[in-house]
């Protein structure tokens, strides 16, 4: 069950890098966030009510709140719908494949605890982090970069939720709050960028250089 979800997450990575429209990109990211937020429920055991509540909160935030913030910004800023990558989609997909393979390889090197033996979590987490990096590095618009950041965080959550089940409640909530606050600040900055530069293309944000 868990491995199935993780496989789905990895597939979504491909979808993220392959999507050419920003709206689709954000929706896909939301879907990935929801799937990941559901992970604790799939794991089922040793969580209790508190865990379920937390998972639900996370699901709402990742699946609805953050995508809503991003989409709202996207609509309001009235920017072009295309993703505008630096490298082509097929190349991106190949890089994701490479990253996934790398994640699997690294995962092989890391000995899992007996109860997690054979788990895909490490590979999925690293592959998703890598996908997030790819979005950050190869996409031009500030909004796609913010999405990339979201994916990166998703990858980290995979690891945290699957393997480190016992992360204290306080820390987990802080993580979510930080994520929201981070995305919120990013969106504010994006608004300012759009106002100041009339574009979200980060190539225009390159006046500070040596």
């Amino acid at each position, binding site marked *: 069950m868990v491995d199935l979800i993780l496989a789905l997450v990895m597939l979504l990575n491909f979808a993220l890098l392959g999507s050419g429209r920003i709206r689709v990109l954000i929706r896909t990211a939301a879907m990935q966030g929801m799937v990941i937020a559901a992970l604790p429920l799939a794991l089922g055991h040793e969580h209790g009510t508190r865990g379920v509540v937390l998972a639900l909160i996370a699901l709402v935030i990742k699946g609805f709140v953050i995508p809503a913030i991003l989409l709202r910004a996207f609509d309001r800023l009235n920017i072009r719908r295309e993703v505008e990558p630096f490298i082509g989609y097929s190349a991106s997909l190949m890089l994701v494949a490479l990253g996934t393979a790398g994640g699997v390889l690294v995962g092989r090197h*890391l000995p899992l605890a007996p109860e997690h033996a054979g788990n895909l979590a490490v590979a999925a987490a690293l592959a998703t982090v890598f996908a997030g*990096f790819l979005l950050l590095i190869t996409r031009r618009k500030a909004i796609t970069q913010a999405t990339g950041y979201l994916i990166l965080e998703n990858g980290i959550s995979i690891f945290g939720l699957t393997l*480190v089940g016992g*992360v204290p409640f306080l*820390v987990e909530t802080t993580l979510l709050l*930080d994520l929201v606050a*981070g995305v919120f600040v990013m969106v504010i900055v994006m608004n300012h960028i759009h106002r100041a530069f009339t574009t979200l293309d980060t190539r225009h*944000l390159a006046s500070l250089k040596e």
Partner: protein
Amino acid sequence: MIAIALLLLAPALAALVAALIRDNARRPWVLPALGAVHLAATLVAIATRPIAAHLDDALVASLWLRMDALGAVVLLALSVLFLLVGCYAPGYLRARAERPNRVLVVCAAVFLGLATLATLSQHLGLMWAAIEGATLACAPMIYFNHNQRSLEATWKYLMVGGVGIALALLGTFFMAYAAIASGHPVELTYEALIAHGTLSEPWVRVGFVLLLVGYGTKMGLAPMHAWKPDAYGETPGIVGALLAGGMTSVAFLALARVVGLVDALGQGAFARQALTVMGLLSMAWAAVFMIRQNDIKRMLAYSSVEHMGILAVGLALGPAALPAVLLHLLGNAWAKSALFLAAGNIHRAYASKHIPAVSGAILRLPISGGIFLLGFLAATGTPPFALFLSELGMVQAAASAGAWWTASIFLTCLAVIFIGFSATVLAAVLGDSDAPEPEPHLGDSWRTTAVPVVGLALVLALGLWMPAPLRHLFDEAVAAWPSRTAAVSLSQETLP
């Protein structure tokens, strides 16, 4: 106990008050008040630390908070720095009356609170959360000027810093899993982790790498430092000082704790090699970019990169170099405050921060120019400033560890950095300027110069005289270093 509570509550309260005050001119006075209270609380907390030892356990158990020697030194650096910046802020913000400063003042208070929390926390996760929060609080401050350039800087800061700090979280998880993989319950306090003795080697190593990259980004180690010149260059001097002296110091503390942990978990050798490489790379990178650098604020940013590299190298040299490292941290934080504030004064008076435009500052702004020159000397480790003693101490530690290559590269980088740094500083400070005289309110006054003078005097005093309590803190930090392998691996140091 009360002092520690005050340390955390005062910033929160100050943020609240600042948010409520409507008068743009009166609001900044919150900052010096907060700084004074905070420093007083810090001093009391440090002084009563031994007495309050029995209360510690309770605090650690419930809130994962404790003031250990390492944290106390960083807190001291931060607190003094904040008081300095706070005292400077009202004068500065009065000169910038055209900009609303509510966000700045509130964020500064929040930043102080979260940074304080980070220095006190004994829990990897809590520390991470505090630093992440502090990172976010800094973003609006960087954007204070509300122009395109500062916006660009903010965005870069936010993205690079955000990604870095996210990696630090992953690293924290890896550390946690290292315990799980070794069959221990999840526990992220340092004490608990250290108590395990040995944990799964690959997890610790990978976790350390992630934490190094994560907190290294916050510190500004090359090549993750790229946000630094942009952010420092486009932000007011007070924010630059807070970032360069405060944010980086706290990030360093996080890294130092992680290194201590990794050391105790038996992976110290790898951690030190990685730190040495990153530190030397930072110094070399900074050196390259300081040559012919004609933006005085970006120059300070690269100097900050250099100093973080020095701290990393010092950390890599093990507990023997720890007193030198801590002294360096204090000296760097305070010298940077003087430099950034003086650079800000010069920037305002000339309406430029680039070399051909800025020249002859010592004639135009005798005190700010002089501070800038002396601050440069302090930052480059000139005796009798404190940073000389600390760099000397690091070279000595390297020598006694037999790390000859490290010491050679370290000193070579210092030489190149001095050449580049001095060229820019002398061009700015000496000579004659054909720019028009600054308007009277932009010239030197005690409001704009007293604080950097004090900052510089502190660095000088620390170089001439080491107060006994501070020495005890250093000694305690060395004694408390959770190293199991202090003697191991230093002599086997190799560079790839």
